[in-house]
């Protein structure tokens, strides 16, 4: 019987010839990660089993969700991670280095590897053909201690996309379409395997946007075939030897195959308070917005900032709408700086934040006021997400976000590009 991408990677990680959806396997873990919100608890759990991580050089702790620290308590959590990494040899990603998943893609993960993170968007790495999944602190702590985890091999939904994305429509819109179609729990426990000519033509950055949001349909992971673009990226990042081709078998068994014609897609908006509450731009146009946030592990890369800057160039944000831009990592920040993108944002009236998660999870750098609405390029719009249960979060592509910042209301980016 043929295997899907998820089955192939998990067969290899568990040392078996073949696995199928539903099998339970023990998989060797290649990268174990936890940020400061879940890391201290993961470390405490690990310490109940072992004094040190099994593979310190592949155990990475991040200070990114609330960095620099907004409170004394969080500063102490940061100190705990610094002390632990110094003593154990585990790696630390400091204030200003960037969002965990972006940094893991840049410097750690490679095709065919297993990535366990104490953060739900660990599925981001699927764009490189690596199996990433989010787990809680106990599971990650145990993986740190033992260097392995147990996994139920997921069944797979194949998402086959054909046709060119129309002008003004991006990978984010395509993924919002997928989530709207599946529902927030439509792919619970499944692997989403993306393929087809449209995915082949997407940049790696756009592919990361899609895999990042697999969990928003409930999926365990999102995967794509590693191709020439991944090969080139790994070479640029100094690890060309890590490239590996992995393909699903032609006779792989899919629980569902979902065909999407990209040519018919429009800019989309996820409306409050769930990601699957997806509306067309026509339905949402004119909604007043008090804050636009461009950044995150979903859409905070150079490509995203470039698209937003091209729309904001020579324009100003609406006087009633503040604009926050947070590059996903230090390297993204530097490149955006060198390309002049940050200058464009500053001239347009934006506040540029240091690399990290920024305003996404309501801890700092852009908490919303009562009754306010934010249009964000992030992945999640649950009630209370941005620090206030009486606020409203809309999700879109960077292009829609930039166009909306200029008009102060949700705006069709096709009007301005």
């Amino acid at each position, binding site marked *: 019987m043929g295997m899907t991408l998820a089955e192939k990677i998990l067969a290899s990680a568990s040392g078996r010839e073949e696995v199928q959806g539903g099998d339970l396997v023990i998989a060797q873990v290649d990268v174990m990660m936890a940020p400061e919100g879940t890391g201290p608890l993961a470390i405490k759990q690990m310490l109940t089993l072992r004094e040190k991580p099994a593979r310190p050089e592949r155990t990475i702790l991040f200070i990114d969700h609330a960095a620099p620290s907004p409170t004394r308590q969080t500063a102490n959590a940061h100190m705990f991670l610094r002390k632990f990494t110094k003593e154990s040899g585990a790696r630390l990603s400091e204030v200003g280095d960037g969002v965990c998943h972006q940094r893991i893609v840049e410097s750690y993960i490679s095709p065919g590897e297993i990535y366990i993170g104490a953060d739900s968007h660990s599925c981001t790495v699927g764009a490189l053909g690596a199996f990433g999944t989010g787990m*809680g602190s106990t599971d990650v702590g145990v993986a740190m201690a033992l260097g392995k985890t147990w996994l139920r091999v997921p069944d797979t939904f194949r998402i086959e996309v054909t046709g060119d994305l129309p002008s003004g429509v991006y990978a984010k819109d395509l993924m919002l379409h997928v989530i709207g179609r599946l529902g927030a729990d439509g792919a619970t426990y499944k692997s989403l395997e993306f393929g087809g000519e449209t995915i082949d033509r997407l940049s790696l950055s756009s592919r990361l946007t899609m895999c990042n949001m697999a969990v928003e349909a409930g999926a365990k992971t999102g995967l794509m075939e590693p191709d020439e673009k991944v090969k080139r990226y790994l070479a640029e990042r100094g690890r060309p030897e890590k490239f590996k081709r992995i393909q699903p078998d032609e006779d792989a068994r899919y629980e569902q195959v979902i065909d999407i014609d990209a040519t018919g897609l429009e800019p989309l908006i996820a409306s409050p308070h769930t990601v699957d509450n997806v509306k067309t731009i026509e339905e949402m146009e004119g909604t007043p917005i008090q804050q636009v946030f461009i950044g995150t592990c979903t859409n905070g890369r150079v490509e995203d900032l470039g698209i937003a800057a091209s729309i904001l160039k020579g324009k100003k944000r609406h006087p009633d709408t503040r604009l926050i831009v947070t590059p996903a990592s230090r390297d993204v920040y530097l490149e955006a700086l060198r390309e002049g993108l940050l200058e464009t944002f500053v001239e347009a009236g934006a506040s540029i934040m240091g690399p990290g998660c920024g305003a996404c999870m309501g801890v700092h750098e852009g908490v919303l006021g009562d009754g306010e609405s934010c249009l964000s390029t992030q992945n999640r719009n649950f009630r209370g997400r941005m620090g206030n249960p009486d606020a409203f979060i809309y999700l879109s592509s960077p292009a829609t976000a930039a166009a909306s910042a200029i008009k102060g209301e949700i705006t069709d980016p096709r009007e301005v590009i």
Partner: protein
Amino acid sequence: MVTVKGKAWMFGDSISTDLITPGRYFHLRENLPELAKHVLEDARPEFAANVKKGDVIVAGKNFGLGSSREHAAQVIKLAGVSAILAKSFARIFYRNAINIGIPVLECDTSQIEEGDELEIELEEGIVRNLTKGIELRTSPMPAVMLSILAEGGLIPYIKKHGDLPVGGR
């Protein structure tokens, strides 16, 4: 395994981890008893102050969706909740709850109302609604999950058995 008994607290669909443990209490992540004072505050503000030991959370579909923060399961347990019944659970929350030893059972919760007295036989997966005099069946919990829960969670399981709970097909 044990039988638990308590009053039902009703919740709707899509109770996210942002509703269970809001980001604005991020600074309390290392102080679980303080964090537990705000458990489910944005879904039902009166819950944290009034929940009694043994009470049961009864919810709709996709309970616990969103962030992987295990603190969500931890503070529900600390608040004294003995079990969570829902039409369905989000994947990460489900695994987190079992890992720290709080029973999570899938069943049709439409025949349970606020304040109903429930008695749950965990291993058999039977829910008795004592107030209404009816018996409900839950979806069987996977064997691996039952084995972790029987030891009180993943860490006690590994300490006792010396390894992860599964191996082989």
